């Protein structure tokens, strides 16, 4: 990729400064503002074993992940309002119940329809259906490192899979966690997925929700299906019309459009087209083949012409 050749380097630098400066100050400000909180909550192991669930309750904030998250411009106190001013925190802080929709539904900056559709599919999911009182957005989403899938690229695919599956496995891999939440013991994941070939490999390459939200994306990623309704057919993914194209691999269409242009991506549709796919080697190879074919046909024609002329010549004599 080339930087615009006519742009003066100084202009570029000035432009960069203009954009970068305010952001850094803002980051510094939020750092200072949150410094007191992070003195404890910045400890990576600030956590305890929760007697209610038997699982680990992590109270630490990874400030680096937070700085990369969609919530990076928020300070601690923007969401956590009352009772956190001092340590030990006040009793009211303990009672704090935050909900995503506090901000995301009433705020005009966010597409209201999206959150309403999420809410609709979430309330139909197996988690909500079986644990209405205890299962919230935060059971899966950590607001401190949350990034929308739409912001992901091919390069970050692996970490997206690891993060999202980590959210599922955080409970589903811990018998105590499951018992604490549901009151009953589940079979281990490896047992329930024994039918799936290359289990671990699948788990490291695709997200649990690819199968556990079914083949129909219209239902949304939040309509989590239980074992009886999840996708089991291999060809749902392993086919030309893979359901992954509308899920984990959504970025592909986007990236393709970005790199090849809208028309190209529509015309090509995963096929090879000379001059469009922009693989010079293949292009030259293809052109070479055409030239060779034409040369062959030409040579053949010429030979036939020459032979015919000679025969004619001999017949004359």
């Amino acid at each position, binding site marked *: 990729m080339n930087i615009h050749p006519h742009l003066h380097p100084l202009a570029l630098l000035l432009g960069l400064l203009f954009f970068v400066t305010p952001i850094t100050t803002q980051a510094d400000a939020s750092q200072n503002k949150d410094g*007191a909180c992070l*003195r*404890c909550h910045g*400890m*990576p*192991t*600030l*956590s*305890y*074993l929760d007697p209610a669930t038997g699982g*680990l*309750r992590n*109270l*630490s904030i990874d400030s680096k992940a937070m700085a990369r998250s969609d919530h990076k411009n928020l300070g601690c106190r923007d969401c956590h309002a009352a009772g956190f001013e001092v*340590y*030990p925190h006040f009793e009211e802080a303990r009672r704090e119940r935050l909900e995503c929709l506090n901000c995301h539904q009433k705020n005009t900056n966010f597409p209201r329809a999206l959150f309403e559709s999420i809410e609709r599919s979430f309330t139909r999911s197996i988690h909500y259906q079986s644990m209405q009182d205890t299962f919230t957005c935060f059971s899966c989403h950590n607001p401190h490192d949350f990034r929308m899938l739409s912001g992901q690229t091919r390069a970050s695919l692996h970490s997206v899979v690891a993060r999202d599956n980590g959210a599922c496995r955080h409970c589903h891999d811990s018998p105590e966690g499951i018992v604490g939440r549901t009151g009953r013991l589940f079979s281990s994941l490896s047992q329930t997925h024994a039918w799936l070939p290359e289990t671990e490999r699948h788990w490291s390459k695709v997200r649990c929700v690819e199968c556990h939200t079914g083949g129909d994306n219209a239902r949304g990623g939040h309509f989590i299906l239980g074992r009886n309704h999840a996708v089991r057919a291999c060809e749902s993914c392993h086919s030309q019309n893979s359901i992954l194209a509308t899920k984990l691999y959504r970025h592909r269409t986007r990236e393709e459009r970005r790199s090849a242009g809208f028309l190209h991506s529509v015309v090509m549709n995963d096929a090879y087209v000379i001059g469009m796919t922009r693989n010079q080697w293949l292009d030259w190879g293809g052109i070479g083949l055409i030239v060779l074919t034409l040369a062959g046909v030409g040579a053949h024609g010429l030979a036939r012409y020459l032979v015919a002329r000679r025969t004619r010549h001999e017949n004359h004599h």
Partner: protein
Amino acid sequence: MNTGQFRQSRHIKRIAIILGLGVTVGVARWIYPGLLESYIGVSNAPLTFANSVPLEPREFETLADSLTREYRQQRAMAQTENEEMPFARRLKINMLMKTGSFAKDAPYPHIDYFRKAGILHYKGPETCLTCHTTMKVTDEHGKIHQVDTMKDVVDSVHYKFQSSAAGFSTYGFDGRQVNSAGNRPIPVGKIDRACGVPGSFTWTGWADLVKTKPAHANGETEIRSEGCGQCHIGGGYHPATEKMLPLHDAPATAKAGIDCLICHSPSYDMNERYVIEDDNGQRWNQDRSLKAALTVGPPTNKTCLFCHQHNMGGDLEKSLPPGAAPDNLGHKNKRLLHPGAKRGNSIQPEHDVHAAAGMVCTDCHKPQGHKIPRGTLGVDLVANDLPGRKVECESCHTAAPHVKDEQERALLNGHVARVSCEACHIKKLRDDNTVLRDWIHPIWNEEEGAFVFQDVYQSGEAGRGFTFLWFNGNGSFLANALGDNPVGDGSYNPLMRQLVKIEDPKAVEAIRQAATRLKKNYPDLDVDQYVREVTDPLSSLSPEMLEKRKKMIEEKIRPIMAQGQSKIYPFKLFNAIMYEDMNNQGPFGAMILPFDYPTYYESGDPKASVKKALEHPILKRMYEAPFKLYMMDEFMRYFGVSGWKADYPVDAKGKLKNVEAHWMRQMGSLMINHGIQKEGRGCKECHSKSGILDFNALGYPPERAEELRKLPELQ
């Protein structure tokens, strides 16, 4: 050539090949070991032990019966412990002894095995191997292997106490990991690591008899036993030297001398452990009685502590359980006790929460056959049989160990990323934890009737007997913990600060008083100079050497300090003054020279003692070309010196040459992991102006150090 000639020449060729093969095998099998033995000056001979005697069947039954009764008696005693009235207790014990279900308990299965196999005589390993020729060993992947039991023992660190394999967490001062890939492996471990705690090498101090004249004997001589062999399972005239030589295994006679029972028999009598002398030299006696053999089982705390008491609570710890080593010094030639605890962390139930919970050593140090893991972290150059096997608190306590205190638990767990469990849960060591040992000014000890080295400073207190250092699991070649502050300003440098300076006023004063006491016996001693040298051991380095040291630390050691994730651990501090071969000196020290124990204890002349030790054949070989090339050059490069100068430090007139006494250039730092207390430290023990952690020395930026001392939450 006619057919006859051809056939004849082929015949000759065949004979020549067979002869050649025969000679090679013969050389390898008989001549090479013999030559090697005579070269390094060790001798091997069939070993006999007076207490290994056959019993009559009737005697066997009587013994079996009394062992079982004794066991039941002990159980009944324990069960009735809370009965205050002695008579009632006696009656209860009698009742229990006659109770059917109680009596059914057969504590020693080997009584029955021996009875069925007709074994009435314990002859050492050969008796054990009758049934245990091979054993099943489960590896780290859960796979089961059938291994040769004797080979498993002989290849373990407990027998050979060195290793030429990779897996050391130790780094040379030249920046290379000891025996790591790409380097020529050399045998390294306790067998060839000079150390200021015992003051000798394993070869020169294996089994010695010392003539003492204690006050209580009214001028009579008492013979005492001393030497490294009291704690190592080989029963021969020397340590397992053969195992560290190329293409060589321990000879059969040495294998037959292995003491299986000291680890496997809880009724092993430590009074049988003393030095005996025969035509071939001196060696350690062992308990080979049938009584000890009948009670065998997996190692217990008691059996581990037969030897490891020495580096846990030490030889002077009181109220040890019956049978403990320091209370059973020998039926004759009693072993000399070692004052000054090596680590000073007692593992007795009243000092250690795990021992109090009834846990055994092998619960954490889970053996894999005869290989016992010591964990993945280590500073002390001790060979590790299972370098990848973790031994850590987290395996049981999880990453969030604090559970009960609802207010503080999360904050305490928050510390786990930076602070080791030991830093808070080992609050003090024993008072007799030795910090500074002077080997060159021995003083007559009336009670022992011998000249004894002097511990000029002992302390179990934080900041004095032990300090806190960043540690990532790596150690230097001279037992210095390596690590770095993950959020530091780059100023953390223990090899130029914590480990080379004693500044605590209380410690300095105690050292001054000790030096003043020494002066009574050594009038020439300059107290000021003595205190200066011991509290600032770098003062003995030349300016060039000091510069070289700083450069090596920055270039070679810093990258190793920066590896992995460091946490703050407590480290026991130790330094000693010994004679050194100044021909082989570098920025981190010189090769220390061993003492010959009898000369040292009897004459109180340390120099004469060094000279005597240097006469040992293997020390002479150390100063010759083959040993130089085989291992000493490489050893010295790890040591931070370019190579080994094989110049024997005794001149033609028998005088020591180029030998000087110095404190080692930095204190050693030994990990302390036992003696864990249930209650950890409170916040203010660290986070206050006079806290035990010196945040500045630990490399925090000044403003962060100040913040850590004055946390607003604690004001």
